[in-house]
């Protein structure tokens, strides 16, 4: 047996896991989407009923809107904060400390983070309202609830973004900056025209990270708001979970999964295209 074939055998265990728990489920979703099934009941075939229901499900379209809004607010904020903070602390004595502090929330386990926020910001008996009387409206006002989940996500992830940008900043050659300064460029101009353009690949990478975060925000939603109030924070992933495992409609949940997968696919393709475009333009410049 050739070495290459022998080496291929080493991929078998991992591939077996991938096939059993990713590929087969992926390929079966479409079939499950034709079932009426509570999870414990015997599945009953209902044809295209679940798919038809997708089209006239207002909650689904609201949920898609929520997901897009979430992404459109969370991602640019994530990028801007990572960039601004990394630039602001570069070379300062507090740089290490700030980075460690901002990264620390990511080290608290997610359930623990939810507890920390609950203790602090709960409008009925959180510390904030006890000490300042300031009652955050995130349990009653839809917009505030979405902002709350976004703030939580940023709280968890910004440190990671700052680390990434900061690492990239270290890679900007000092001579380039020096040359611009000798040519009479202002510090602000050096940042604007030299440093930030050189960070483009990093920012592109963080855009992808940010999108994935938006698509995965269902965990934060589950922990903080359970989709409420009035479904205002019910992002797509959470709607799938709620339909299948709170309302026990797994057949329709499968149809929703199909839809969510489609959205994920579209986003991935768009992103790949943007990245390819960018790298082409970068190569030409």
């Amino acid at each position: 047996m050739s070495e290459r074939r022998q080496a291929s055998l080493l991929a078998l265990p991992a591939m077996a896991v991938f096939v059993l728990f990713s590929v087969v489920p992926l390929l079966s979703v479409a079939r499950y989407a034709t079932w009426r099934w509570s999870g414990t009941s015997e599945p009953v075939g209902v044809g295209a009923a679940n798919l038809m229901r997708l089209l006239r499900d207002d909650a689904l379209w609201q949920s898609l809107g929520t997901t897009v809004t979430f992404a459109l607010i969370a991602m640019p904020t994530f990028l801007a904060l990572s960039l601004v903070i990394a630039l602001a602390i570069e070379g300062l004595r507090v740089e290490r400390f700030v980075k460690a502090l901002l990264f620390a929330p990511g080290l608290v386990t997610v359930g623990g983070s939810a507890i920390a926020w609950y203790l602090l910001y709960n409008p009925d008996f959180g510390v904030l309202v006890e000490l300042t009387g300031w009652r955050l409206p995130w349990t009653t006002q839809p917009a505030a609830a979405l902002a709350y989940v976004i703030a939580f996500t940023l709280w968890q992830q910004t440190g990671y973004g700052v680390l990434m940008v900061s690492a990239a900043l270290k890679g900007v050659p000092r001579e380039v900056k020096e040359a611009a300064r000798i040519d009479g460029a202002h510090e602000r101009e050096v940042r604007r025209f030299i440093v930030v353009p050189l960070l483009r690949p990093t920012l592109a990478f963080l855009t992808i990270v940010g999108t994935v975060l938006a698509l995965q925000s269902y965990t934060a939603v589950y922990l903080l708001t359970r989709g409420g109030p009035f479904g205002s924070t019910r992002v797509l992933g959470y709607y799938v979970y709620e339909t299948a495992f709170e309302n026990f409609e797994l057949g329709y949940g499968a149809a929703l999964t199909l839809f969510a997968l489609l959205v994920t696919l579209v986003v991935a393709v768009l992103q790949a295209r943007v990245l390819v475009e960018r790298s082409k333009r970068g190569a030409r410049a």
Partner: protein
Amino acid sequence: MIVMRLITVVACVFAALPLAWLVYAAFIPAEALIAANIATFGVTLANFAALGDTGLWRAMGVSVLASGLAVTGQLAFGLGAAYAIRNGARLLGLVLLLMAIPSELLLVPLYRQLQTLSLIDTLGALIVPFLASPLVVFLLLQALRRVPWELIEAARLDGAGEGVIVARVVAPVLRPELVAAAVLAFAAHWNLVLYPRVMTTESLWTVQVFLTDLLRTRPFEWGLLGAAALVASAPILVLYVVFEKRIIATFEAGFRS
């Protein structure tokens, strides 16, 4: 620059507040909270002692066992897969595709699959589907591309089989990357929330399911909640502090390529 520094300061305060309060709540006496006198000084471990009756330690046991075994599998199987791909097996496309799909998006079809395999509500449900991770395969593959191939050729000339080469030659060389991948994979598995909530019942609750339930059943006991959150975070915290330099270096190296 002033505005940027101001934003940084606000971000730092915002980042620190929940953490500071968590630690504070965990160590203050319950009486201080009941009297709504949170400026009381004094430190107590009573909150941690009270965790004994809550079932946290059982949940910690389940989580440590499940995450530990899952990560062990991810490293062993991931190394094999990465090595096979490095040797020409055409599986990179599949790995990248699976990386793009958040695992908890597949809850519904996974539920059916686990039912078919009789894994629902077993310890296996928390471990078997996680024995391989596309992200770990990808990270190890990136690392493998930096390993000088003469090393492996030399081992082949000495008559070593491919399995032996992976275990005896590749694994030691990739030790730093394996460590970093292990910490990341452990944290990812430890932090699963919806999956264990759906696939298991109370006797197999992981720490995350336990924490969300504790928040629901005892919402007024700040000290207890704080202590539970700290204990549940301890494993990730310890791993990270011990291996911090490795993780950051691996991150940056993987990122440059």
